[in-house]
């Protein structure tokens, strides 16, 4: 029996094909990010390549970071058959003392033999990138040397944590103590500038200017003295901490080389080729923790993204604190306090459409209005002595948050309006009929019922704000902010400071650093984190909406 196919059924399949394409693209992209992002922290094995190209034979040691096709035209110039799809490996060879570049491309057809020596070690260092090689010996002092490879490795592992901790302590003290002294010094310097400014404007006479200035200069000299002492003390401590040295047998371009690496400067040392499963897991966990809790190292290519997470969260919170109350206010006004004429309709369309205005336009407004106009005005009024160095007249977290709150306020307005519109007239009228005033009705009846909608709007606004980069780029985001927006110095919150942001971090490492291929893993992990935060916020919006709706449904009736 023959089945008759309904007319146009193939076309229906075609439309289905396009939807399937959508689904494949989005899941494929998420998968790509998840796989690449999660895989970045695994301990990569150290491969030893024996090269046998046209050049003289060479042995290199390093971790393979990626593998890709050699472009057809390049393959042809190199003399490979493009139809065979030759590949090349991006190998991290590290050892910046020996090689000019951290990474090098190894063409697949040139590789003779690949081995994984079990005792190959990778040392992650605070500076100068990774080092690869084999443990040669451990030099504890001028005449205390442990020569055996196994003993040296054992002793190294015992002393490493302590020495590393010591160096971290020195660093922390440096930041705290010297930071405090430097801060005081800077305050004095600014006071001198302020005095000079006041003298120039005739607000103080020259006699009191001179007395005060002498005092400050004396205080500054004292500070400088103690700064020097502190520095010297810390320097000698650091010298002691850096004395024990791990000697590494590395493969240079001309045979083996011995490289001295101070134990304290090693962040992490591991032998990935002979790791147990638990060690691998511990390694992975420590890398993830470092990523989430540490400052970036090596021009953002290594270390963590904690300041970026912090900056993103702080910025989003500030933005929400501005956008939500004002958005709710505007929505209440539009819905409850106007009669809904043509004017209100126009305003509503205009507000809706602001969500479609390019974010860079908001950024431009933020730069022109907040940074230059308002910030410049604040500087001229409150900090004239610091000019031309700007205080508020340059990008900062406050201006970035305000700019983004303008961008997200339409989201809040629209969501709140929808929630308000959804409340049945009867509830409102019932409240009014019982003698409540309009405000009481709004506060006790309307707003509680609209809360789920408002919350959803707020969370969606946060998600949108967390993912925006373009307006931030011109209103205060920087690639590296050493100072957090708050500290122990008055007024504790320093909203004029610049900040780091996960989205901008992606752009920065992926597009503004020299070795993009090498840093791409970091970009993927940062992306994963950002997407994780945004998806979490979106999910939260959906869940909050569902849960609160349930609660108010039962409470309301």
């Amino acid at each position: 029996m023959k089945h008759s196919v309904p007319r146009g059924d193939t076309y229906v399949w075609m439309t289905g094909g396009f939807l399937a394409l959508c689904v494949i693209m989005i899941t494929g992209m998420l998968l790509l990010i998840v796989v690449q992002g999660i895989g970045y922290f695994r301990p990569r094995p150290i491969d030893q390549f024996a090269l046998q190209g046209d050049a003289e034979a060479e042995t290199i040691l390093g971790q393979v970071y990626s593998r890709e096709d050699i472009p057809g035209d390049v393959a042809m110039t190199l003399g490979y058959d493009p139809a065979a799809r030759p590949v090349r490996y991006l190998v991290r060879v590290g050892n910046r003392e020996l090689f000019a570049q951290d990474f090098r491309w190894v063409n697949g057809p040139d590789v003779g033999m690949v081995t994984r020596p079990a005792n190959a070690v990778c040392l992650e260092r605070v500076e100068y990138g990774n080092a690869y090689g084999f443990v040669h010996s451990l030099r504890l002092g001028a005449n205390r040397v442990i020569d055996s490879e196994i003993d040296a490795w054992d002793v190294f592992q015992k002393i490493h944590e302590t020495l590393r901790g010591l160096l971290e302590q020195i660093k922390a003290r440096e930041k705290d103590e010297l930071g405090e002294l430097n801060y005081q010094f800077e305050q004095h310097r600014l006071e001198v500038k302020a005095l000079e400014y006041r003298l120039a404007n005739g607000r103080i006479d020259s006699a009191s200017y001179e007395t005060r200035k002498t005092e400050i200069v004396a205080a500054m000299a004292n500070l400088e003295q103690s700064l020097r002492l502190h520095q010297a003390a810390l320097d000698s401590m650091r010298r002691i901490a850096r004395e024990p040295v791990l000697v590494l047998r590395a493969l240079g371009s001309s045979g083996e080389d011995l490289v001295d690496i101070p134990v304290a400067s090693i962040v992490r040392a591991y032998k990935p080729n002979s790791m147990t499963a638990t060690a691998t897991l511990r390694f992975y966990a420590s890398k993830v923790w470092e990523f989430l809790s540490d400052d970036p190292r090596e021009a953002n290519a290594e270390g963590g993204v904690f300041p970026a997470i912090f900056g993103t969260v702080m910025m989003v919170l500030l933005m929400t604190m501005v956008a939500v109350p004002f958005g709710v206010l505007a929505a209440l006004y539009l819905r409850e306090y106007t009669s809904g004429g043509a004017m209100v309709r126009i305003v509503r369309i205009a507000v809706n459409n602001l969500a479609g205005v390019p974010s860079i336009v908001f950024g431009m407004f933020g730069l022109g209005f907040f940074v230059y106009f308002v910030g410049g005005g604040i500087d001229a009024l409150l900090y004239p002595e610091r000019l031309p160095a700007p205080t508020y007249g340059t990008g900062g977290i406050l201006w970035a948050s305000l700019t983004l709150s303008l961008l997200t306020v339409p989201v809040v307005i629209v969501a709140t309006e929808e929630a308000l519109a959804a409340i049945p007239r009867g509830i409102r009228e019932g409240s009014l009929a019982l003698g409540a005033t309009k405000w009481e009705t709004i506060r006790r009846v309307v707003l509680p019922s609209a809360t789920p909608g408002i919350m959803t709007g707020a969370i969606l606004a946060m998600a949108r704000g967390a993912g925006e980069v373009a307006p931030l780029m011109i209103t205060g985001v920087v690639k590296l902010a050493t100072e957090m927006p708050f500290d122990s110095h008055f007024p504790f919150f320093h909203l004029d400071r610049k900040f780091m942001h996960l989205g901008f971090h992606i752009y920065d490492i992926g597009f503004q650093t020299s070795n993009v291929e090498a840093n791409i893993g970091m970009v993927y992990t940062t992306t994963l984190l950002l997407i994780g935060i945004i998806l979490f916020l979106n999910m939260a919006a959906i869940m909050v909406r569902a849960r609160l709706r349930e609660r108010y449904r039962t409470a309301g009736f």
Partner: protein
Amino acid sequence: MFRDNSLVDQTAVRRRVRRVWSNGAAGFFISLGGVGVIIVVLAIFVFIGYETIPLWTQPSLTEIADLHFSHPDEVLIMGENEYRSLGYAVTGTGELIFFSPSDGTELARHRIPSMTNVTFAAIDPTQKKILAIDSNQFGLILSLPTTYTQVSDLDSRGITTTPFALIEPFTAPIADFSVSGQDDFYAVIAGDKSPPVLVTSRGASLFAGSTPEIVQAKLSWDYSAAVSSVAVDKFGERVVVSTTTGRAFYWDVRDPTNPIMVQSIALSDTEITATKFLLGGQVLIVGDAKGRITTWTWALDSASVNGLSMVRLNEFDGHTGRVTAIASALRNKSFITGDATGEVFLHYQTGGRTLLKSRGSASTRALTISPRGDGILILAADGSISIDSLYNPYPEASLRTLFGKIQYEGYDHPTYTWQSTGGTDDFESKFSLVPLLFGTLKGALYAMVFALPVAILGALYTALFSHPRIRNIVKPIVELMAALPSVVIGFIAALWLAPLLETRFVDAVVIVVLFPLSVLAASLLWRLLPHAAKNGFLSGSELIVLVPAIVLFMILGTYIAPEIEAFLFGGSFRQWLYESANVAYDQRNSIVVGFAMGFAVIPIIFTISEDALSGVPAHLTAGSLALGATRWQTATRVVLPTASPGIFSAAMVGFGRAVGETMIVLMATGNTPVLDFSAFVGMRTLSANIAVEIPEAPYLGTLYRILFFSGLLLFAFTFLVNTVAEIIRQRLRKRYSTI
């Protein structure tokens, strides 16, 4: 009843007052806050527009003072310091007169050493050096200090002099004089019956205090007409000698001891009365006896001796009388011209505009623009100096320079170019928005080509054909797509897709071709399946078969693509493209951008279209199906026509988003502002341009305001598109409720 109890009464009254009061206060604050927020949000538009207004203000010239000297010395030339606090004039009697430009009072007189009868004087464009020639064939360079604010700064130690004897006698000398950034100076002097002489001094600042060596060389040629004007550029590379017949001679004088005549060219059909180099030394301004003003530049020319030849740039509004004086500005490409009837015009080279026309009473003898370009000095034939202040803040911007095809200096043809800043201060800014607008539209169109079919057909399937259970999975996935930050999409496009596409472009093409085949194969497979096997599936679950089929065909594509590439393109598509079609392949090209930006706008188009499609009243579709139409017939004949305004509105909103998208284009294109239709090159869009350039643009400068203007264009465009789309949607909603 309560009336007896005054206590209760009082509390009740107090409470009521408080309630009424708080109600009123809340109403006031909510209204105030609400109106405030709306005003602030809408004020963005006003602010951005306001920032661009000064671009269109007219320049103006106001006379501050008129200077008549106590006894009628013949003033030859005059200049000012940077702050316009001190001016000077050189007289024929060999005196330097200092005056105050703010009120025109004479402050002091200095005698120029060993000069009694100055027959000619010229100042260099920076107004720091003066060349004076006396009747005894004696030349003198007076150097003023780099900064001076009062006469006492210019005592005998302040002004240094460098005398030299001319190798050629001049009876009525004319000269042009310029100083390089290294303090080297170049002068070209000509006179009746004698060949022009080039005077060069290099290495002046190498040894402070030492006398620089002065080299003089004759420029000899056998032309009979008399020299009427000479000009030398600030690098000492080019000399143009003009004659009474309108013919001019261009000399390459890079080797001052051996000047080479490169070109003989007719700059006018009548006597050339004044010539001057514009800031940067790339443009010569020419004025003639009929009052015409033209500019000329040097363009590459392989036929020329030194590879360069003069070409004409612009003609400006002409004067009534013969042009007598030209002065070029130090900060931008403005210049002023004066004529024998006393007219003084202000022009701007880029775009060839005459900005301002002013009329004096007596013939103009000499002109000077103050170093900061905020004032001019006009020397009239009666010996008086008119001191004027000039307001000319944004001469670079005009509708013509922003949107027109402009021939820039060094170009032999007009182009659309955006290049806002260059390596040097005297760089000619090129502010054509055309390549940026083009790039914006190109990117958005490529995005639409990809996004429209995917989003609309996908929405069609979701709204009309899919099973609710599938719909409940698919819609959140697409909404998830909308939540992805554009920086993520841009990063994936630029760092994953672009390099992949570069090596595997053919794979992508093969996959695109295989896509319909995979759908066909899936549907065929479905039909061939026995009925029993299909029973478990619900109608509208085609997706379950389609997704694996498409993925399978994609994988298949990557396997057969190398064979196809080897067969059709000899192994490398990129190389084939370059060699056979002469098309360069940029890694970050329009295809990558189109794909990425399409990906970004699919969710919004999808959501709005899906809303419109599923909003079509059910009785229409039910009626159609009941009459025996298939689901495809119902979709195309009933649902699509009804919902088409909604789909159109979806496409508009999507287009608006694509136009304004910043991060994706910033990351996935090379950001080169080119006008190229090729799909294999990148672009720069208005939004990316703002992101790239505004951090470096000086506050309230021309670039800053032009970027705000481009932001205004973006804002207005997207706002308009969204509003129209919104109105269409509202109308549609009304229609749905009526049918």
